[in-house]
């Protein structure tokens, strides 16, 4: 497998998700990831990006969200950085996944999906910035 990295700077707007998706898709393909791996990568990045856009900012100003994805011989690292309110997804409780449909709340589901699809998740608050790092070692492809 190859090695590479992309860095993206996105506005805090859901309209950026199309560009984000296309860039991640192209990156995944350039790294030789399979469809499932690219789908999961896109899903994780988009869930976290969407959370930041929807909940991190209490004003009407434009904020920049920095996202990078790097890949080195099967090891994926995702980094997200924003200047929004402090938010530690690592500490977020998982939603009820077993009860009847009436009791299911959807809050926290995006973060739960990210935790399940990745292996490591680390949060740091540095100055006025949230820095979230996620890591995963990809399954070796079937020959």
């Amino acid at each position, binding site marked *: 497998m190859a090695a590479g990295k992309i860095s993206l700077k996105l506005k805090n707007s859901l309209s950026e998700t199309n560009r984000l998706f296309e860039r991640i898709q192209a990156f995944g393909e350039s790294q030789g990831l399979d469809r499932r791996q690219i789908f999961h990568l896109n899903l994780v990045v988009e869930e976290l990006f969407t959370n930041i856009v929807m909940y991190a900012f209490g004003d009407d100003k434009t904020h920049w969200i920095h996202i990078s994805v790097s890949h080195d011989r099967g090891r994926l690292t995702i980094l997200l950085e924003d200047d929004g309110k402090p938010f530690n997804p690592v500490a977020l409780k998982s939603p009820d996944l077993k009860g009847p449909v009436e009791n299911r709340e959807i809050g926290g*589901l995006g973060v739960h999906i990210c935790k399940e699809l990745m292996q490591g998740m680390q949060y740091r608050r540095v100055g006025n910035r949230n820095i979230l790092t996620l890591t995963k070692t990809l399954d070796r492809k079937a020959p």
Partner: protein
Amino acid sequence: MEIIEEKENDTAVFKLNGRLDSNTAPEFDDKISTSIDNGVRFIVVDCQALDYITSAGLRILNKTAKKLKPVDGKVVLCAMEDYVREVFEISGFDTFLPIFPDMQTAMAQLKTG
């Protein structure tokens, strides 16, 4: 995202083509809600051409299942890629949303149990 709706009496089939995410979920939500308001009780979501789904899409399916339960209705899914199904499983959605391998089976099971 393209959403094709076919309706017959109290049953509707929604074919999803493309990506169901935070941008396209509101349109899907509107179409399903309108359909239920117009008397639909049984819904099949055909996922054969669904490339991608996020929690925004799951939220709509959760809402639909909640709405249909008290009126003895049902929403089921069919023909999804394995990697899409995985997202339903890790979210615990497969416990209240039946997922069938194809449209024929989904239609046959829709009004049973």
